[in-house]
């Protein structure tokens, strides 16, 4: 509690400062006005920074998405093209394919992360000696820089020298075939992010009331019954949060795919972030990139809307 004592002496120092301030009436009225503005001034820098790095760019990309613009031109000298960029997107098979792949990839990875994460959380919640060691070790993958994780897996999955092919005695070119590339990327992602879900759900499990489970145990319920009828319903709010957070993050998946497949082979791992990246920074078609960005934004706003609605409805979450 020496933190509180430190606060006490600080308060004493404040007292002298305040007495000095009170002595001068002119200074007092200005500082009283400033004091009333405290909250507004405290959030001002955040508001400005937010507008600068988030608000203005998004508005500008909305503008850009209705223009024909190339990087040599000055900012506002593009040609207004109406909804041409969006129409081009909607008739582009690579884009439509990437929408389908993004939703498919998100669904597969989120579902598997939740299942494995829940399993992990349930195991790690059991009070046994050494369990905290497992808790520490099993969350390691989620801490690793995603690019490095993906890069390591690229070596593990190497067709000729990788340990995976050696262990299962095959020579599959995991990341070079359209039918295995997306699955491989998803498995690597599962490896890295199931621990994330596990940590969230473990925090949930730890905060559940113990009385219902103890009562059920006295009534002779089996473990499976207790899990299904008591733990799972109580854990539901946490599962919902994990589900929505993972959905939002997988929807914008990029790092692992960039490193492992770069969207290929044959566009089989071309998720929306990858498509937008290649359009904007490889083809340098930035107005098309802006249109793709806004298409993505609208889709994730729908997801965020869902997220916020759920959070608002369940305040104590």
């Amino acid at each position, binding site marked *: 509690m020496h*933190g509180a004592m430190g606060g006490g002496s*600080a*308060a004493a120092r*404040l*007292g002298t*400062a*305040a*007495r000095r301030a009170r002595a001068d009436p002119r200074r007092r009225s200005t500082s009283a006005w*400033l004091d009333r503005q*405290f*909250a507004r001034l*405290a*959030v001002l*820098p*955040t*508001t400005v920074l937010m507008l600068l*790095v*988030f608000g203005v760019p998004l508005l500008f990309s909305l503008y*850009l998405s209705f223009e024909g613009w190339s990087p040599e031109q000055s*900012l506002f000298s593009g040609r207004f093209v109406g909804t041409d960029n969006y129409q081009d997107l909607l008739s582009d098979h690579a884009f439509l394919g990437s929408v389908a792949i993004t939703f498919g990839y998100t669904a597969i990875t989120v579902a598997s992360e939740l299942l494995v994460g829940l399993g992990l959380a349930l195991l790690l919640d059991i009070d*046994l000696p050494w369990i905290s060691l*497992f808790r520490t070790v*099993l969350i390691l993958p989620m*801490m690793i820089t*995603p*690019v*490095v994780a993906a*890069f*390591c*897996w690229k*070596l*593990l999955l*190497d067709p000729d*020298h990788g340990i995976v092919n*050696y262990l299962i005695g095959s020579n599959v070119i995991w990341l070079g075939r359209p039918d295995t590339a997306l699955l491989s990327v998803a498995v690597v992602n599962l490896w890295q992010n199931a*621990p994330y879900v596990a*940590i*969230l759900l473990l*925090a949930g499990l730890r905060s*559940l009331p*113990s009385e219902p489970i103890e009562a059920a145990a006295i009534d002779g319920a089996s*473990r499976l019954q*207790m899990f299904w009828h008591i733990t799972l319903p109580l854990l539901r709010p946490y599962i919902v*949060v994990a589900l929505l957070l993972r959905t*939002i993050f997988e929807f*914008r998946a*990029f790092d692992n795919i*960039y*490193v492992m497949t770069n969207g290929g082979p044959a566009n089989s791992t071309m998720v*929306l*972030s990858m498509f*937008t*990246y290649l359009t904007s*920074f490889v083809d340098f078609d*930035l107005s098309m*990139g802006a249109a793709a*960005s806004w298409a*993505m934004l609208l889709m*994730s706003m729908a997801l965020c809307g869902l997220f916020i609605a759920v959070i608002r409805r369940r305040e104590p*979450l």
Partner: protein
Amino acid sequence: MSAPSRVGSRRSRLVFAGGVYLALIALTVVFLFPLVWIVGLSLKTRLQIFTMPPLLVWRPTLENYAGVVHSADFVQAFTNSLLVSSGAVLLSMIVGVPAAYAIARFPFRGRSLLFFGLLAMRMLPAIAVLVPMYVLFSKIGLTTTRLSVILAYTTFSLPLVVWIMRGFFEDLPRELEESAWVDGASRYAAFVRVVLPLIRPGLVAACILCLQLAWNDFLFAAVLTNNATRTLPVLMAAFSSGDTGVEWGGMTASGVLVILPVIIFSFAAQRHLVAGLSSGAVKG
């Protein structure tokens, strides 16, 4: 959930515990094997790396690490990573902590709008912000500078700081600052001299979680840097583009050196990990 240990006889409890350990050990092997294997590769010579069947026992060599540490590219990227990560953390903390305090303590007009904006900033896809940001930054000559990366990183580190710190401020009893106000201290003085010292553990946690996110970022740095200002993840991605070649020793050693600091940060902030992950959705 300590209740299950009361279920059943002693024998069945032992069987249960045995099963749990077995499952945990199996999972640990599955989850840790890739990491252990990569660390192993980084300690082998080039000849040993490509030996088939793989060598399981060998005399570890540090030559790959020596090579990496002496590589100008790696040292430069490491310095850049350090500079932009700490710059982003510093900027987000200075800007975000007062805002978090105001949001936690004072009702003001636009509070929920600000809150909503921060949530959107954290949740919306980074690439969608990056496309226009790149255009705007390149027109004012900011691209390829470290400052551009720092500014870009605030799109995720600022919301994170506000979220984490808001939780800490809300948990702090009001009496201490209120008594300072009664003593005649201004809101500013009370915030700086009474509240901030009490909230130090929260500040540390927020710093570490932000540092981790910034250190791990790839997308922003990939677009906004050049060969002189690139960060470690960008360098790592450059290794792996196309064919991975034969320099596995150097690449794995670099990878290990990149993730080592984050792992250390994370363990330092393990208690606060949940708060950071859920960005305030679950009160950690």
